[in-house]
């Protein structure tokens, strides 16, 4: 089983559009949307939900006002500023650690399970899909990403598939770490802009930190050819393969509006040909990675 994680560091570089196009090009993939904070892949893949599970990964403190004597012990010991001056817990700030519960001399604090979101098992026109929705303001997106990946692996086994395509989260913190650790390889979608190059370098060092193979695709490459060259030479120096360059074309947006992948929306367009070539290069990389491990 192979697992390719599409990430970007910076948001809005075309990560989801490209992940969806790969899902359309690969024969019989399993798809996982690990951008649980702001998932978008379902808007292109139109999953039919087969199963929903509640995701509970943490607790939240609740103070019983009839038992509370306002002694202030919980407020003093809470390091997350979650206890308001009126001894009501702010669930947004609460990390669910339970320090207040053990600090309270009057047993007024109770820890309750907290619903962080939902995890879905679905069917799409390309294959099975695991995805999720994190509720607003919730933490634990890392744990949720890990759960979505676990589900995708189970789906791969039960349906005897070989490849998982993961649409990863932006950034480099817990959710991204949870999305890439233990995967076969990462595909970083970048664009030739000063901010995106800054973010690319950080996300590439994250892959290096966890020693995970990685490759790069430059989206909107002709927006700034000089910056695209800069990305190429940086990657060459670091021995990271650049597996494709895609043109800047508003047809991307049109396909999104139509709720389709580029491959379906404009099969004969240059972009679709480029994506096909991209997938061939990615496949070669994945093969050589699996041979060397």
């Amino acid at each position, binding site marked *: 089983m192979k697992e390719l994680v599409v990430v*970007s*560091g*910076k*948001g*809005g*570089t075309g990560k*989801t559009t490209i992940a969806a196009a790969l899902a359309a090009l690969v024969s019989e993939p399993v798809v996982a949307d690990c951008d649980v*904070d*702001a998932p*978008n892949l379902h*808007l292109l893949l139109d999953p039919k939900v087969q199963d929903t599970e509640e995701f509970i990964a943490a*607790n939240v403190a609740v103070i019983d006002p009839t038992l509370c004597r306002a002694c202030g012990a919980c407020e003093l*010991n809470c*390091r997350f500023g979650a206890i308001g001056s009126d001894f009501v817990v702010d669930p*947004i700030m609460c*990390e*669910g*650690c*339970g*320090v207040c519960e*053990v*600090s309270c001399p009057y047993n007024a604090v109770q820890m309750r399970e907290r619903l962080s979101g939902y995890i879905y098992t679905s069917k799409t026109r390309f294959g099975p899909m695991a995805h999720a929705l*994190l509720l*607003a*303001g*919730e*933490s634990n*997106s*890392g744990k949720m990403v890990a759960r979505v990946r676990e589900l995708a692996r189970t789906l791969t086994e039960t349906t005897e598939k070989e490849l998982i395509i993961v649409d990863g*989260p*932006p*950034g*480099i*913190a*817990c959710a*991204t*770490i949870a999305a890439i650790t233990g995967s076969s390889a990462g595909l970083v979608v970048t*664009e*030739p*802009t*000063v*901010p995106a190059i*800054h*973010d690319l370098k*950080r*996300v590439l*060092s*994250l892959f290096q*930190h*966890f020693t995970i193979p990685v490759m790069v695709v430059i989206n*909107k490459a002709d*927006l*700034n050819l000089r*910056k695209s060259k800069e990305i190429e030479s940086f990657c060459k120096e670091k021995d990271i393969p650049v597996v494709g360059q895609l043109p*800047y074309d*508003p047809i991307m*947006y049109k396909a*999104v*509006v139509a*709720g389709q992948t580029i491959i379906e929306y404009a099969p004969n367009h240059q972009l679709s040909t480029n994506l096909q070539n991209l997938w061939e290069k990615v496949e070669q990389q994945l093969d050589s990675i699996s041979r060397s491990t």
Partner: protein
Amino acid sequence: MKIAIASGKGGTGKTSVAVNLALSLRDSVQILDCDADEPNVHTLLPLTQDQIQPVFTMVPEFDETKCTRSKNCSAFCPTHAIFVSDQGITFFPEICIGCGGCILSCPSQAIQEGQRQLGVLHQGMTAPGIEVVYGELDVGEPFVVPVIKAVKDQAKNSEGTVVLVDCPPGVSCPMVESVHGVDYCLLVTEPTPFGLHDLRLAVDTVRQLNIPIGVIVNRAGIGDQQVFTYCASEDIPILLEIPHSREIAELFSEGIPFTQRMPDWQSKFRELFQVIQEGIRK
């Protein structure tokens, strides 16, 4: 006055809006870049002098000689970061959330408060009248929220200062931490189904915090009309539309804020600021 610039979806133009608004106001502005995973403000507005300081989180420090193997700490630890055996104590700092519960639960005062670096804070002027503060999470560290808090702690509270908070994407805890406590929230979106989907999530989140909202539509002209229909039906004002333009995109690619080359836009951003002020007073 504190204004957050947020969005559910990444790459809609938050940073561009924050930077161009700052350049248009030009005086007594402070930008707090809270996207400590991938801070970008300084790539458009380089700091002339950069003061750097580390950001720490609390971690326990164990004194093995005092430890009586009660195992109270490991029983308490919500993330199972501590493992106590007869041979000694094993501690996994990268999963410790720094709650301090282990210190409280130790019967023999064998645990002290130590610290561990999570990232750094940068602070400096970028132009006369514009200060930039940004956090930078160390690569490989999972917990970004303490770095965001360190950035927000630098917010100027003086009456005349306009504090612009550039938020991380998404709607989970880092975004909420960044938006928390501001007077107004600008949500930047693009008129596509992706933009609309994530805008809805962001609106639901910011409404829970009781903060007034205004929307900026970036890349207007691409996509469809649904963002406009949604905002009208939810009674959310659209304060500014920035057209889809190759010229703006090319300037951005070079790291140039577009108002510097298209000065007419500065008055539009100043008008935007007036409308926000009225929105806060309401």
